Structures are given as C-alpha cells and as structure tokens.
C-alpha cells in the first residue's frame, strides 16, 4: 500500500473534515476538525485496505498563545500493512472538548484520562473521566504552559527542618513522632 495514497483516500472520503495533510520527515499527518475524529478513526480501523487496527498513542500539545490552544494528537498503526498515520485535531481553550475514542479502542480510555489530567481537555462520552497520574486534591493541569513547574501542592504538610541539631533522628528514646 503506497504511503501517499493513504492521505489521498482519507481526503477523498472526508473532504469536509480534513483540513490539511502533509508528509514532513516521511511521517504522514492529517489535520482534521475535532468533530470528525470518531468517523475518521472508524474508517481507518474498518477499511479493508488500510486496517489501522492499533491506536499506538494519544496525546496533546499545548500551543500557548496560539488560537486554538490545544492540539490532540493520535498515532495509528497498521500491523499487517506496516503503516503509520498521525491525526491531529485542534481544540479551543474555551470549548475544551472532543469526542472520545474509547468506544472503538478500549485502550484509549487511560490515554484520554491522562490527557484530561495533564491538560484539562474533556472527552465527551468517556465512561470514567478522572485524574490518573495526579491525586484528586490537585488543582490545575500540570502540563499546561501556564502551570509553573515548581508549584507544589503537598498532601502531607512539610516538617520544619533543623539541620544543625540531632532532633532529626528517631532513636529508642521515647519521643512522639514528628
């Protein structure tokens, strides 16, 4: 299956959803509008000639100061035909939602939870969208560019450190735990 014809086929099937295609660095990329992701993914999965049966990766990028701000990136893999395709969809900050792919690939479940946790993009139709890497008390979305890297939100209050004496130790002296 020729690499170029994948992009042509996708463009032909969905002329109104595909915004742009390119093959920079030899990697096929399709940029679509976010509402059509489920249709296009289903087409890629079920089409006889393409057979993109595995969702290799699902992630997002924060293009701060550009509008629309976020871009959700999907990587598809066809193990039989040894093909790869990248699909990207832009998401606005004000309307931070995109349909979920967990109906087609159950593996997308955790990837989408991670994108929600790190960026705050909601996936409509997701069975259980909650934080996965951070704890529920955490406020904010860490991988956004406006979240400062060193802002801690500790769950356990930090102790006072006395670095000169020996009070840092617990020995067999009866002393209550700090």
């Amino acid at each position, binding site marked *: 299956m020729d690499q170029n014809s994948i992009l042509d086929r996708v463009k032909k099937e969905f002329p109104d959803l595909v915004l742009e295609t390119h093959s*920079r*660095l030899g*990697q096929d990329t399709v940029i679509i509008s976010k509402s059509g992701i489920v249709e296009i993914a289903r087409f890629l999965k079920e089409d006889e000639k393409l057979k993109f*049966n*595995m*969702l*290799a*990766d699902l*992630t997002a*990028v*924060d293009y701060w100061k550009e509008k629309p701000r976020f871009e959700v*990136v999907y*990587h598809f893999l066809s*193990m039989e035909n*040894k093909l*790869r395709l*990248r699909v990207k969809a832009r998401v606005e900050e004000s309307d931070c939602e995109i349909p979920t792919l967990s109906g087609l*690939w*159950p*593996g997308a*479940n*955790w*990837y989408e939870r991670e994108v929600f946790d*790190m960026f705050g993009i909601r996936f409509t139709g997701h069975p259980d969208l*909650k*934080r*996965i*890497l*951070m*704890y*529920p*008390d955490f406020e904010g979305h*860490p*991988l956004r560019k406006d979240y400062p*890297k060193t802002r801690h939100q500790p*769950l356990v209050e930090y102790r006072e450190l006395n670095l000169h004496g020996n009070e840092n130790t617990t020995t067999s002296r009866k002393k209550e735990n700090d």
Partner: protein
Amino acid sequence: MTDRLDQDNTFFEQTGKREMFVNFGPSHPSMHGVIRIKLIADGEFVKKTEIDIGYLHRGFEKECESCPYPNGFPYTDRLNYVSPLINNFGFAKAVEDLMGLTVPERGEYIRVIMSELSRITDHLTCVGACTMELGAFTAFLYMMKAREWLYEVIESVTGAHLTVSYARIGGVKADLPEGFSEHCLKSLSDVSGVLDEIDVLMTRNRIFYDRTRDVGVMTREEAIAYGVTGPFLRSTGIDYDVRKAFPYHVYDRFDFEIPVGWRGDNYDRYLVRMEEMRQSIRIIRQALDTIPPGPTSVDSEGNVINAAAMADLGKTGRTKNLINLEARVEPTLEGSEKRIHAQVRDACRKAGLPPKDQTYTNIESLMNHFKIVMDGHGVRPPKGETYSFVEGGNGELGFYVVSDGTDHPWRVRCRPPCFPIMSGLHNILEKGQIADIVATFGTVNMIAGELDR
C-alpha cells in the same frame, strides 16, 4: 472508604454483602515499584478490580521542556530504569530524525550491542522477580548474579551500571574500550549458562507450571484493542516486533528470530522472555563479529592507549591501587579522541561536540563547542514534530518530540509500552484468584518509572 488518594467512593461502594474490599497497596513486596490495585473479592475469587497509578509521576515531560535537548538524557535513563540504554537511544533517535542527522556505522553497531545488553538485563530482572514471588528464590539469585556480570560489561563502556546517559545526539558518548569483545563474549557465555540452569529449574517445574499455565490469559483481540506491544503481544501469537517491522539502527543486517507464544498466558510470557534473551545474545555475537573496525583510543602521537586506563577506577570501586598513583591529565585532552571521533559521532556540527584537541587549539571549533553547550545557544532542531519508536523491553517505546526551533523542546512525550498493558490488566485479573494476581503482575513487567513518567 475514601482516603485522599481516592477520587470518590464509588469503587468501594460496589462491594457486595458477602464480599471483601482488599487494597494491594502502593507499597507492596513485589519489587516492581509502586502501584495500587483495589480489589473486591469473594473469598479467593476476584470479582472487580481497579488499578490506580501515578505514584511515581516525576514530571519527566515538564522537566524536559525546561532543559536543552542534550540535558534530557539523564531523565530518559530513569524512565525504564532496568533497560536505560534503550530509552536513551530512543530519545536520541527522535532528535536525530528531527535534525536529519545520520549516525555513523560504528555508532549504530555500538547502539545495537548496548540495546541488546539492556534488553537482557530487563528480561533477567523481570523473570527473576516473577519467579521469586512464586517462591523460587534460587532462580532470582542466579539471575541477579547474571545481571551483575552484564552490569560490569555496561560499566566498562559507560561508567555506570544503571543510570548511564550514554547516548548523545548524533552518536554515542565514547567508543568501546579495548578488550570489550572478549569481556562481553565471556559474560554472555556465562549468562547463557545461567539461562540453561534456570531452564532446568523452572521450565518443567510442576509448581511453576501449575501456577502460570492458563493463568492471566489475554486474547489476541484484547491485546490489539488495548494497544499492547512487546512480549505481551507476542505471547498471544502475533509476531509484531518493531525491530523487524520497521527496522532501525542496523537490525536488518542481523539474523534473529522473534519468539511467539500461542496461549497468551503467564507461562508463554515467561517462555517468550527466556527465548528473547537467547536471541539477544545471538544478535550481540553477530554484531561483535561484524562491527566495523577501528582503533579504540590513540594519543596525540598515534600510540595506542589502553582504554582501561581511561576508566575511573575510583568510581568503579576498585580503589586498592589508587593510593600511590600520580595524577594524570585526561588522555582526551591530548587528542586521543581524534581518530575515533568520526566513527562514533556524527560529523554534523550542529549537535555533536567537536574533538577536544580541536576545541583547545582552534577558534572555529571553540566557537562550535560554545554554541552547542552554552545557555541561549544549544542544539536547535528545525521547527517540526516527529514520532520515533524503538523496541523497548516491554514493547514499542515511542518518543513524540515537538520542536519550536529553540534550544528547549516544546513538548516531549514518551509513549510507555507498559501503559496500555496496565490499562487492560483489569480484565485479566478479574478472571482469577487473588494468588494469581502476583503471578500475572510479575510477568507484566510494569516499570513504574516508565508507566508514570
């Protein structure tokens, strides 16, 4: 039963009247790292599970955004910390793809050898820990002994046995030391002997067989639906291996096989990993036979320097004879790198540091060095994005790097191979008993550093 680590009570509330809620807590004896498995069990049978991850989320992606490209290598070491070299090379490959660099041939051969050594240590740790949890402590000790031999080989090349940071953009840090071939082949034959011993101990062992055969079964369709790759996928019968499907480095020149299971259970995964270790040994032997030749180190007069003399004895613990040693200037300052430099590092001046003797004697090389290392300058790939993948110990390890033309990456995303496996694990665990969780979890080879990044 809410605690501050739970989002809500919904999982606990599903516990029925005669059932029990068990927490396989974050700190537990199977030495795989930190993960929390919440179970609802009816006696010994597991009814529902939920897996909670993120206890080792160290902000790898955020850290990479705030440091220049070459500074990302120590962070990649700590992703899959049992096979750090594979992660290093994966990240280096991604940046090289962005910049359009080609690594010279000898550098590629070195990368293949080191990757396969790392893969063997990964599988040794996995199989060793798995068998230890099922009670076979002897097998674990034998595998740790074998792993130490390989660590010594890796240490003679890179200087460290775990967190190596050996890759550089455009090649590797330094050439192989003298005598590496003999040392490596001897260690490999010792490791091969240990694998044979483990085979005798475990493969037809009644207890091991009963505990792992038909336990933890994942079907092919499930595996593809969840995006699973690596030994887990191969044990279900699909022979997808990145090294054969999308060959990178110089893997297409070697003759090796991909072991494939058929039932997708724990026993098959154990067999697939054991066989993969033997295939890795085979690849390394072929690579050592056909590696393009070249001197390992020469000084400025052309005399060969014993590479072992350049190793830091203090760091490797061999301190006995160091007391009376005179201080010596590092040989690389005298130009020893010059002849071997071109063989292992890409000659492109945008990413690789120039040889030291040039840097110290020549203004253009000094400026080149300055431009790569100093803040505000640095390695600057052109604007763009790339997704590059290598075969990690657990499957396809991908790096998606977005560059905005400055010296800091805009986004680095690591696609961890064990993430999809863990997302599909709850299906497998719900079919068995509590004791099977230990066996299954052992064969998954979850590395928390990679899963949580």
